[in-house]
């Protein structure tokens, strides 16, 4: 790995995965260091499959993935060390308390216990989990469980945070807390890639937005750039998104290099 700080947090080239039909079809995607990137697309567009391949949960059929310059296919452990994955279904253990869960995750990432304990306490407070910190997760609400999962993703201080529909099932208060935490992480230099169906979240938080359909990136850019690509003037992101998806593959040729 080069000593110089890479400019890209994630670089995906020609990524492909086929199940019954192509789920991801020759995808090229770049996310800059310190960028909040949101991936939009209709159901079945290939967003989750893409992110699962990036995090090493799925093996691609073709293509390359580099995380902060590390070839994630050749050195998956090296890439995983600096990544965190949060799915829409919180991956936590009912019989552990949030603090025990954070201790377990810190163990998986081999984080020093004193450092992990300090970070865990900070995260628990930050995410408003103090009242539940020593209760088993089995009785926690969906939103609280999602916050515990997010704390788990952050306890090993990842450089790249990948989230798949993190706001599903969150109430307004919890969603605001999570958004705040993610924004703070980006300001601290982390990169975030997130899929969402909540366009308002993408509109407010993303530095750049990618739109996928049928396994391909059909549009990419800032909100203004997307409006321009869609020819939708000052329309909302929702109008722009629907216009882009309707245009389908035509937009593929218009993505800026």
């Amino acid at each position, binding site marked *: 790995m080069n000593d110089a700080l890479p400019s890209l947090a994630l670089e995906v080239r020609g990524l492909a995965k086929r199940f019954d039909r192509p789920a991801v079809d020759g995808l090229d995607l770049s996310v800059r260091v310190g960028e909040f990137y949101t991936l939009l697309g209709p159901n079945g567009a290939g967003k989750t499959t893409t992110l699962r391949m990036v995090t090493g949960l799925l093996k691609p059929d073709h293509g390359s993935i580099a995380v902060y310059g590390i070839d994630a296919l050749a050195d998956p452990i090296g890439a*995983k060390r600096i990544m965190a994955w949060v799915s829409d279904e919180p*991956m936590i253990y009912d019989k*552990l308390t949030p603090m025990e869960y954070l201790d377990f995750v*810190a*163990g*998986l*990432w081999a984080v020093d216990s004193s450092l992990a304990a300090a970070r865990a306490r900070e995260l628990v407070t930050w995410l408003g989990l103090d009242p539940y910190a020593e209760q088993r997760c089995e*009785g926690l609400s969906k939103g609280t469980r999602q916050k515990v999962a997010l704390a788990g993703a952050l306890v090993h201080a990842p450089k790249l945070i990948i989230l798949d529909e993190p706001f599903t099932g969150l109430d307004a208060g919890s969603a605001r807390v999570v958004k705040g935490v993610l924004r703070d992480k980006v300001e601290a230099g982390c990169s975030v890639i997130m899929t969402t169906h909540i366009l308002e979240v993408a509109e407010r938080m993303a530095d750049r937005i990618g739109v996928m359909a049928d396994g391909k990136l059909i549009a990419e850019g800032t909100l203004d750039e997307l409006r321009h690509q869609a020819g939708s003037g000052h329309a909302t992101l929702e109008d722009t998104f629907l216009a882009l998806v309707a245009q389908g593959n035509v937009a593929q040729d218009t993505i800026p290099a």
Partner: protein
Amino acid sequence: MSRPGTIAWFAQHEARLAWRDWVSLMTAGRRRRARTVVLGFIAFALGVHGFAYLVLAPSANLSGVADAHALVVITGTLVLAWSMMLSQAMESVTRAFYARGDLDLILTSPTMASRLFAVRIAAMVVTILCVALVLGAPFINVLVWLGGAHWFGAYAVALALAMDAVAIAVVLAVALFRAIGPRRTRVIAQIVAAVIGAAFAIGVQFAAILAFGTIPRMAVLQLASLVNLAPDGGSPIWWPARAVVGDPAALAILLGVSIVALAIAIYLFAPRFGQLVLATTSVSRATSRPRRRPARFHNATPAQALRRKEWTLLLRDPWLMSQTLMQLLYLLPPIFLLWRSFYAGGGAAALLVPILIVASGQLGGGLAWLAVSGEDAPDLIASAPVPPGRVLRAKTEAVLGGIAIVFGPFVAVLAVAAPFAALIAFGGVAIAAGSATAIQFWFRTQARRGLFRRRQTSSRVATFAEALSSIGWAGTGAFAATGTWLAVIPGLFVVAIVTGAWMISPARRATA
């Protein structure tokens, strides 16, 4: 088609669901397997009928005149069968309380839920009867063939026993709910069910050990001393046995009592099922009490973190713990035998070897399923910077550590009494648990830990391979403990089984 909301309509609905569930279970969702399943059933039926013939043909008196010996043996068999039925009924009733499934839909609809529960209680009778008849029917058929049509009464007796078992199970489960609340009932009811199921079988073994100094058999029921102690032939205690051999009066009384018992249970408790089911909702929603001491962070390697996690999750789940350790209930007779052989200074300790090996294989398979297939956060583990090989090794260590904790004391005590047998037991326990663990790794399928009881349905190949490997290693251990070279034969058989399982496993296909 019946009018919606009526008992007949619910019965049709339940029958359709049960049929589709059963077909899916048998064919694993592949229609092309149906022919194989049918052929398998025919082969199984022929095999069990052949076995029943071999067992029953030597019996001199099947004509229907039951002497004292026959009454004791038939009654003993009925008690054994009924204890199994009651155990299964307890499980079914408890499951009906806790399985959410479609209950939210039913309970929020304007229909009378009590009708559905009445149908479900009746369905339990049918299910339990069918399970009992899988092994019972061939014996009854052979008895009819050899002894005459009066043995058909045994089918009616089986139905009566199933009705009694369900009626009592409903009463027991509701009583447990009232007495200890929904949170504890789930665990306690499962334990009660297992103890009831095992009690008679284990009791007979205890009696046999006391009488003969060795394990098994129903032969203890034929002891002259037991027959002499039994009441005279006119006692009501023999009515079920008399009904089996075709006494119409005894059969009528038995059926009548059972129908009334089931009807009372349905009448009294079906309307209350809804409230009890709703009470179980609070079990999953209730928050646990906070820990008294805050969690301590550990400096751990990923492997240590994984091992600790597996053991913590198991220890904190009393239901899962009871399900896992229930397999060890059958170790009670060997413990007793061990104690007795010490007392008598006998050489029966070698008999323990195969039992320990079988139990370790079963426990190893269960723990491995929990660690591998029952992983609640597979994405978390897969996205961690830990090589998959190290994850598997850590989980294997967690499983084998659990096996060592359970079986270590047995082997240690055995080593004092019979060092050679202990050495064989040690090797057998390790290799049986290791084989079962490996099979679970090769056939892993992601599932919720709560589905532990249905783990066998995910892969029948894995289930049979695991069972055959445990039994095969037990046979190898049994021969080896007696110092005979014949141990090689079952040993090679198991190696072939385990190798065959690997050859057809999804894990091999993935690495090929």
